[in-house]
């Protein structure tokens, strides 16, 4: 009992230490960092990455990867905006369906789920490596977004959606609520349910898991589907924040999500890691982005700094863990 428990605690506390050090450093250099409004700002800005990265965590725990999340985000965001603004017309049937904001959001989530399930289907049915299957989806979903939007943003989506992007509820920004709920739900799923255990088992040893009677394909399908759905929630958040769906939304977001997962201590070879670790990873990236701008670091240096900090975070983490 003690050993694993301590280990998990330790593992998490490593990333927490990195986060703490980063915060300390920035706070020493800028007195604007530790203000309430800036901290809400950081939390709101990481909410999209948190949603995507939680899905990515499940995928990576299973020793998979999902490169398509950024494009899926863009497509679902566009669908959300399109449904709310234009509804859905079956021209042949001469039927028109209007959508409420909630309808648009659910529609987007459904689309994300379907694209994710398609990833899962290709991966399980044709044994295509996840890297390739989702790389193809990265291109396909981006193309679909361009086709659906004709390359032009869909804007002015009304106050309902705007509230989701920019509103506050009980003193907390709505996007933060949403990402919080996502985190709680998936912490629960990953730690307390058989489904969660299966994800770890598949990542730990797929063959042994299969021989133990786990329906590997079904779990994989579900996980890629969920990753797509979470990307879609990210898409809704981005669209709601701008009150406009941008066709090029979400570009390279997969890299930020994977970085959050890895910095948070989840192993890319599967079986080891946690959703809470990923949240810390996303926070590290968010704080870093925030700090670089607060300190007005030149955009040229920012990229170098970002790369170096990611490296350092992972190396510190590794070294501490080895000693422990």
């Amino acid at each position: 009992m003690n050993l694993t428990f301590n280990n998990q605690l330790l593992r998490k506390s490593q990333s927490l230490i990195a986060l703490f050090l980063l915060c300390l450093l920035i706070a020493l250099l800028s007195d604007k960092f530790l203000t309430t409004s800036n901290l809400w700002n950081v939390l709101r800005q990481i909410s999209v990455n948190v949603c995507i990265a939680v899905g990515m965590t499940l995928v990576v725990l299973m020793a998979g990867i999902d490169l398509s999340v950024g494009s899926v985000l863009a497509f679902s965001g566009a669908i959300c905006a399109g449904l709310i603004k234009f509804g859905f017309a079956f021209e042949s049937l001469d039927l028109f369906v209007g959508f409420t904001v909630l309808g648009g959001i659910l529609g987007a989530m459904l689309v994300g789920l379907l694209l994710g399930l398609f990833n899962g289907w290709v991966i399980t049915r044709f044994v295509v490596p996840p890297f390739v299957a989702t790389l193809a989806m990265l291109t396909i979903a981006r193309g679909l977004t361009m086709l659906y939007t004709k390359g032009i943003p869909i804007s002015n989506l009304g106050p309902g959606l705007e509230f989701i992007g920019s509103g506050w509820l009980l003193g907390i920004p709505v996007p933060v609520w949403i990402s919080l709920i996502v985190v709680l739900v998936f912490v629960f799923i990953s730690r307390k349910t058989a489904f969660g255990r299966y994800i770890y088992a598949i990542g730990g040893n797929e063959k042994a898991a299969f021989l133990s009677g786990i329906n590997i394909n079904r779990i994989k399908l579900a996980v890629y589907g969920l990753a797509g759905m979470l990307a879609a929630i990210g898409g809704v958040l981005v669209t709601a924040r701008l009150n406009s769906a941008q066709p090029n939304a979400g570009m390279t977001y997969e890299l930020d999500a994977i970085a959050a997962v890895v910095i948070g201590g989840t192993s890319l070879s599967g079986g080891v890691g946690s959703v809470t670790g990923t949240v810390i990873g996303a926070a590290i990236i968010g704080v870093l982005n925030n700090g670089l701008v607060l300190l007005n670091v030149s955009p040229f240096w920012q990229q170098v700094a970002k790369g170096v900090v990611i490296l350092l975070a992972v190396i510190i983490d590794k070294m501490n863990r080895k000693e422990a």
Partner: protein
Amino acid sequence: MLLEARNISKSFPGVKALDDVSLQFYPGQVNVILGENGAGKSTLLKILTGVYPQYEGSILLDGKVLRFGSVREAQRAGIAIIHQELNLIPQLTVSENLFLGRELHRELGLLDSTEMNRQTQAVLEKLQLDIAPQTPVRRLKVGEQQLVEIARALLTDAEVILMDEPTSALSDTEIDNLHRIIRDLKADGKTIVYISHKMDELFRIADHYTVLRDGVMVGTGKMEDTTEAELIRLMVGRELKIEAKTLVTQSDEVVMRVKDLDLDHPYVRQRKVLENISFNLKRGEILGIFGLMGAGRTELLETLFGLHPGRSRYRLEIEGTARQFKSPQEAIRQGLAFVTEDRKAEGLILGMDIAANISLPTLSETPMLQPQREKELARSYVDQLAIKTPSERQLCRNLSGGNQQKVVLAKWLSTRPKILFMDEPTRGIDIKAKHELYELMKQLVADGLSILLVSSEIPEILTLSDRILVMAEGRITGDFSVTEADEDHLLKAALPG
């Protein structure tokens, strides 16, 4: 050359694997190291071959102190090793594996494949292994791979050859073969260090023994001056009594009926790996399946467990109802369980703890995890099977081989199976754990479980089975009751052709 270890100590986090061990390995002799699982045998060998460059104490070769900083340095000093775990590159060919790290070159740094293939062919012939040097290793079965490992050590012309359980995956013919080669090496004055849990072979081949217990050397001497019972006492710390199986009269109720089972070859069309296999398994019976390496025994169990739905055809009845399994999940639901041959690759999730591994097949009963129930379940098996561990939350990776095997067994027992498949269940397990396992199996069948036991060890098959099937080249070639079976009969039936 005389290889000597002086005051060697080695610690891993939380474990003192070796504690001030001093011993000598003599040239022209087979020096065996005995000890229970986790006694420190492999650790010692790894120190002697530069795998662990950090240790206390010193190594002497012909009186000269050496300190190996890397595997390569030990190789250069003339020390070769066959590791306990298979260490081959599956995608490379036999020849490429044999020469890995010490390739032969032509001019301009070009690889000399022709010469390497020639030498490979020669050493394979010496081992009577009928495979082409260009066969990719992944196409070989475990036993053949172990022979390739042996071939690799033979090829180096090393003065000292360390063999860590080289026969764990070999059947008797291959073991005899290996022994013949070892005798040749001995005659050439080479120093052989040998580890095995198979007591009978030790008395056939070894000259000198050393026993380790919990990292401490507890005895050493000449084989001719000792007995099996004495060695076991040294290893285990007490006497072990081997009980012969008391024949229980079982019911005549057939729990599993297999008829006309065929399995197609995965790559070659029109070829069959298994053909025309039919047999019955009764309640409370241990049905042994004997055969030489590659006879198709593993594949038979796999097919019945739903692993090859695409290329198999059979009629199967479980307790009188016709069944076809398309996945292990379906097989498990009908009361089957499968202790697989390779516990690390197929049996366990090494990065998970004991409790999580045990509960894995039964989790689907409820969508929510029940940590308390899971813990109690694990606790009960840790007690019942005497799994040596500080806690049921210990990661399986940190357990010794025998204890890992017990966790696999516990996992399957927790599904309350009617029929248990066991494929080489005692491979690499020390003698004490083996006997505990035997006792357990007897108790389980007494409680009404039926066991299909695949084993390459004739004594094991003979001690445990009520009835024995023999397989050769994918067919059943013999069917004996335990009273009529003996070593000769089994071997004769197992020979191909």
